[in-house]
């Protein structure tokens, strides 16, 4: 049953990172667009993301619940030492979530739209950056686990683990991944000029992503981050990243050819591979503190809890996933119908 729980942990992590990520990315694409293009992006986002954005973000809650129920020791460390970056993540989630809804449901169209737009875009950029920084602090080797809080300064315990260049690079890398996903996703949803626009964006974000990825590895290597060293020496991680890189060729081709489905799935697959590489690089030692490496598998809840959790997840998975699938499918169908109207 442990494997069922692990499966759902990774599954919801991946889905949050990809679906929630594409959602953040859409805001980032909008942020870095020229004035005229913003409107197109805005309307497309509403059409595409509107019905599913809530569902996308519930993956985060599922992830959190699995962590606290199944892996209480891990959850404990994260909640104590990542308090500050997580509050910043929450701030971002709050701001962009409500701004997204306010801008579409405000009964009056006036200058307040400017504010909703600003908050939505900036929130979309900041949230993934802080998410990346939170992840980075887990693997940074800078967390000091102690019971004797008076021996350390506030900065050492609660700031140092997340506030560093390595963390920022990971944050930016994740934000770029989000934008990359969103641009490729949007290609499939648009026509004509807008389509060309996202094609350009997709290429641009690919370049940003690759550059940041390199910078991250080079900096991490020379700054002696254990994680990066192990990443480089882990064949599975390297192969995943390699395949992800090679997939750029068919991705570009399919973008050129204008194949909607392929460009979306290829981009998604690349995202999966990159995430997979990052997780597997040090699995199951995902928390690296200043002293030791904590194994995910050794900080488990009691067996009865794990079994119960697995059962709930299985039941949930069979009710929810089909529903979600159906939702996406039927709204795709509807969009096609919409477009065929004059």
């Amino acid at each position, binding site marked *: 049953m442990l494997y069922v729980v692990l499966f759902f942990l990774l599954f919801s992590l991946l889905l949050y990172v990809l679906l929630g990520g594409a959602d953040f990315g859409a805001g980032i694409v909008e942020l870095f667009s020229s004035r005229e293009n913003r409107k197109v992006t805005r309307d497309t986002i509403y059409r595409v993301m*509107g*019905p*599913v954005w*809530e*569902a996308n*973000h*519930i993956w*985060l*809650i*599922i992830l*959190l*619940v*699995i962590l*606290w*129920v*199944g892996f*209480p*020791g891990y*959850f*404990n460390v*994260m*909640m*104590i030492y990542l*308090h500050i970056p*997580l*509050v910043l993540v*929450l*701030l971002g*989630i*709050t701001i962009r*979530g*409500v701004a*997204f*809804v*306010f801008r579409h*449901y*405000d*009964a*009056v169209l006036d200058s307040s739209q400017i504010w909703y737009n600003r908050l939505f875009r900036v929130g979309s950029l900041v949230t993934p950056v802080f998410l990346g920084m939170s992840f980075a602090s887990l693997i940074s080797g800078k967390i000091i686990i102690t019971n004797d*809080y008076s021996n350390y300064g*506030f900065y050492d*315990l*609660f700031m140092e683990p997340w506030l560093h260049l390595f963390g920022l690079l990971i944050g930016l890398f994740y934000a770029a991944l989000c934008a990359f996903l969103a641009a490729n996703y949007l290609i499939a949803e648009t026509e004509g000029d807008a389509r060309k626009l996202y094609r350009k964006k997709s290429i641009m974000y690919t370049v940003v992503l690759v550059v940041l990825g390199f910078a991250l590895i080079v900096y991490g290597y020379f700054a002696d981050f254990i994680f990066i060293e192990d990443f480089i020496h882990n064949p599975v991680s390297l192969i995943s990243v390699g395949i992800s890189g090679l997939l750029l060729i068919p991705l570009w081709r399919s973008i050129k050819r204008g194949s909607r489905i392929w460009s979306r799935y290829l981009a998604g697959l690349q995202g999966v591979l990159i995430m997979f590489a990052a997780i597997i690089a040090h699995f199951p030692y995902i928390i690296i503190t200043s002293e030791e490496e904590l194994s995910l598998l050794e900080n488990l*809840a*009691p067996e*009865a*809890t794990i079994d*119960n*959790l697995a059962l*709930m*997840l299985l*039941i*949930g998975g069979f*009710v*929810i996933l089909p*529903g*979600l699938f159906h*939702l996406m499918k039927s*709204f795709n169908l*509807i969009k096609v119908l919409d477009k065929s109207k004059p």
Partner: protein
Amino acid sequence: MENLDYARLQMAFTLGFHIIFACIGMVMPFFMVVSHHKWLKTRNPIYLKLTKAWLKGVAIFFATGAVSGTALSFELGMLWPEFMKHAGPIFGMPFSLEGAAFFVEAIALGFYLYGWKKLPEKFHWFTGIIVGVAGVASGILVVSANGWMNAPSGFDYVNGEFLNIDPVEALLNPAWFTQALHMTLAAFVATGFAVAGVHALQIFRGKNVELHTKAFKIAIVFGAVAAFLQPLSGDLSAKDVAERQPVKLAAMEAHYETQKGAPLYIGGIVDEENREVSHKIEIPGALSFLAFGDFDAEVKGLNDFPDDELPPVPIVHYAFQLMVGLGTLLMLAGLIYFISLKKKNWLKNRKFWLLFIIAAPLGFIALEAGWVVTEVGRQPWIIHQVMRTEDAVTPMPGMKYSFFFYLFLYTILGITVTWLMNRQMKALNKEE
């Protein structure tokens, strides 16, 4: 004040904020579905307009509920890491089920919001029902988790360790049923009267009277019926508390001396230092009867508990009085509505509408007061008789700043949502 106090304030404030949006998210779908049903049946366009107007409002409330709920899921861990470390594996089951309920709700809401003219009519309407049912289910589940904190079960506590964990028994803890029943009714009372009050205000001002009267009627029926059931369910809750948390019961009633045939105090000022209550109305034997169904039963007083296990008595007592007092008023308001069904000319009387305008916030005030009773009354325990709140709090200093941060953020958010609702209402009245 210390770190701990700020953490508690933050928890109270953010939960108190979330619960308002959660209640609206639970109850409004039912109002919409009724109005939507009337539209399908009568094809009176006013009902369609009303449904869509409510829908717009609900989308805004939902988003706010979702983000504040997400923040709460983190907060439980960030503020109370020691609590979650031990409690998480035990009372996690309602939360994992709740995840499923959220998904169903979000999916159904997606259909309902975006499905106009795109889905078959009946199916579209039915997705609205699913939204409501899933909302109520998730409410019941979280409250069951809270019930576990009041009536911990499903584990053995041996030498500071939590052994033999049984998540199902923890879910079905002795408090879950009475609390969930009372809370669900409360959500209908609070939302019913609030929505009815908002529409009563528009009628009072003579704006778009036909539509607002229809809206008022839908909302008030739910609110009034629930208001009649609420004291019954509250009585069940009280008997339950008497059994499982006698200290809390004594604090609710500011009952210091253990005695047989204990009197019920109405009102009264608590003097915590001298352990006395002055300026009260006494009803002999009533407390014994309410708590145990027997006028002569012995009710344990606060003096019989160790000092370091007492909650802040005045807060609990006043909050309880407030809840019960408002509950009685709301029941009367509900009665007045039912009488008005026979006396149609009341609807022309401005005082009638004024009454419901005044009643608008009372349900939510009673609801928040009720939570203060439950939560403050549990102090100093975070898990009743197992873990103290002070042992659960985060070691990170500076919770003061965190509290003010949330206070600031949610105050702005609350003001914005109110302002948006006002705009919706104006736009709706203009379209007339």
